[in-house]
C-alpha cells in the first residue's frame, strides 16, 4: 500500500492546462521592483530627473537591464546611460507630467500622490489598506474597470474588473489587501553633509573604525565600538564570503552610527549610517542593508 506522501501526490494530480505565460510574471515583477525602488528614490533632490527617469525606465520594450543596474538608484545624474532618452522637464514651473507610455492606468507619483492616466477616471479609493502608504484604487474608462493595490514592494492589479469571483472592489481589497506591505521608513529623508536631501543615509567615514586583525574592527580616536560582528552577510553586492567584512555599532561625537566595513581588492571601505535613521538595533540595520544591496547594489551610498 502506498504511503501517505504517494497517495497525496496522486490525489493532488497535475495541472489541467499549461501554466500561464511567464511573460506576465516578469512584467509584474519588473513593475513591482521599479515601484519598490521609486519608494526609496522619491523625495531625492533631483526630483525632475527622477520623474523623467521613471518614465524612461518604464518605456515599452524595457528590459530589466535598464532599471536594474546599480546606478539606477542614484538620482543625482540627468545623463542617461542607455539608449533611452529621459524626458527633460520644462522649466516652466508647471507640474511634471509623467510619460504614460507603457504604464498602467494609474500610478503613484514621487510623493505618493495618485496619478491617473488621461482618459481614465478615479472612481474609488481606499487608504491604508494594510498600513501607512498602502492604497487601493478603482479606475474606469468607458466600460473598462481596473483595480489596483499599491504597497511598498509590489503592486497588485486586476486588469479586467470585476473578475475571478470578486463581485466588488471592496471584496477584492479584502482578499488582496493583506498581501500588500506598508512603506518602509523613509530613509531617503536623510540630509547629506551639505544640507540637501541626498537620497541615501550612508556616508563614507574613515575616522570611526578600521580593520584590525582579520574581520575585527578597532575604534579610532574619539570613537567607541558598542557592538560588532564579522561577515554580516549583507549580500554579494556588498561583500562575498571571500572578502573581509564586518559591521559595528559605533558612538562618536555624541551620536551613534552603524558602520559597514569591507575590504575586497582595494583599500578598505567604511560606510557609516546614523543609527537614528536606519533601525533600532544591529539586526534591523542589517535587514535594511540587505534589502538595499539586494535591489541591485549601490546600496547605502
Amino acid at each position, binding site marked *: 500500500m502506498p504511503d501517505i*506522501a504517494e497517495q497525496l501526490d496522486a*490525489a*493532488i494530480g497535475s495541472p489541467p492546462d499549461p*501554466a500561464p505565460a*511567464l511573460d506576465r*510574471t516578469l512584467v509584474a*515583477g519588473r513593475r513591482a521592483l521599479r515601484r519598490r525602488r521609486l519608494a526609496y528614490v522619491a523625495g531625492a533632490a533631483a526630483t525632475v530627473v527622477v520623474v523623467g527617469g521613471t518614465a524612461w525606465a518604464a518605456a515599452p520594450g524595457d528590459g530589466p537591464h535598464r532599471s536594474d543596474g546599480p546606478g539606477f538608484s542614484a538620482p543625482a545624474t540627468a545623463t542617461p546611460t542607455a539608449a533611452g532618452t529621459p524626458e527633460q522637464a520644462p522649466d516652466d514651473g508647471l507640474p511634471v507630467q509623467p510619460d504614460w507610455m507603457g504604464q498602467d492606468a494609474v500610478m503613484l507619483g514621487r510623493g505618493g500622490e495618485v496619478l491617473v492616466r488621461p482618459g481614465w477616471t478615479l472612481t474609488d479609493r481606499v487608504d491604508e489598506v494594510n498600513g501607512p502608504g498602502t492604497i487601493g484604487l478603482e479606475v474606469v474608462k468607458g466600460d473598462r474597470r481596473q483595480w489596483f493595490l499599491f504597497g511598498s514592494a509590489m503592486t*497588485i492589479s486586476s486588469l479586467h474588473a470585476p473578475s475571478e*469571483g470578486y463581485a466588488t472592489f471592496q471584496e477584492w481589497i*479584502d482578499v488582496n489587501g493583506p498581501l500588500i506591505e506598508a512603506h518602509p521608513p523613509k530613509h531617503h529623508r536623510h540630509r547629506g553633509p551639505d544640507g540637501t536631501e541626498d537620497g541615501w543615509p550612508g556616508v563614507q567615514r574613515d575616522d570611526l573604525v578600521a580593520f584590525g586583525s582579520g574581520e575585527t574592527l578597532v575604534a579610532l580616536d574619539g570613537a567607541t565600538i558598542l557592538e560588532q560582528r564579522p561577515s554580516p552577510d549583507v549580500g554579494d553586492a556588498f561583500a562575498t564570503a571571500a572578502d573581509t567584512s564586518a559591521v559595528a555599532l559605533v558612538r562618536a561625537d555624541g551620536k551613534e552610527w552603524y558602520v559597514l566595513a569591507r575590504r575586497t581588492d582595494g583599500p578598505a571601505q567604511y560606510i557609516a549610517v546614523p543609527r537614528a535613521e536606519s533601525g533600532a538595533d544591529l539586526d534591523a540595520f542589517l535587514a535594511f542593508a540587505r534589502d538595499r544591496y539586494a535591489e541591485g547594489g549601490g546600496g547605502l551610498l
Partner: protein
Amino acid sequence: MSASDRETSYVDYVTARREHLRRVAYALCGDWHRADDLLQIALVKLYVAWPRVRRGGSEDAYVRRILVRASIDESRRPWRRERPTDTLPDQPAAAPTGVEDRSALFDALQALPPQQRAAVVLRHWLCLSVAEAAAELRISEGTVKSHTSRGLAALRGALAHSETG
C-alpha cells in the same frame, strides 16, 4: 549580480519549479485557477527579492511561505468560501476538475482547516521536517505535530469511509 544574471537565473528557477509550485498552491487552496493567482503573487514577490532569496538558497521555501500565508489569509474571509457562481471569468476557463474526478483523499485534505491542511501538505506530501514546517508556518513544532496528527486522522478516516462506502 548583474541585471541580466538576475533575470536569467530567476527565469531558470521559475521554469524549472513552476509546475511543482502550482501543485503546492493547488494542494493548499483546492482550485487550479486560484492556485495560479496565488502563485503569480508569490512569484512577483520572489522577483523583487530574488538576489537575496537566491543567495540564501531557499527559493522553494520562500515561495511556499507566501503561498501558505496567502491561502490562509484568503480562507479566513467567509465571503471567499461563498464565491458567487454567476460571475464569469474573463477568459475561457480550463475544464475544472469535477467533483467526481477528485479523490476522496483530496476532498478530505481540502476539508481540513487551512493551517492544518498546510501542515499536512508540508510534512506529509513535501516531507519537510517538523522544524522546517514550523518555520514555514511560523508556528511551534508542537503545534505542527498536533495539526498533522489531527489532519492525518481525518484523512485516514475519509479514506476508510471511502473504501467501505
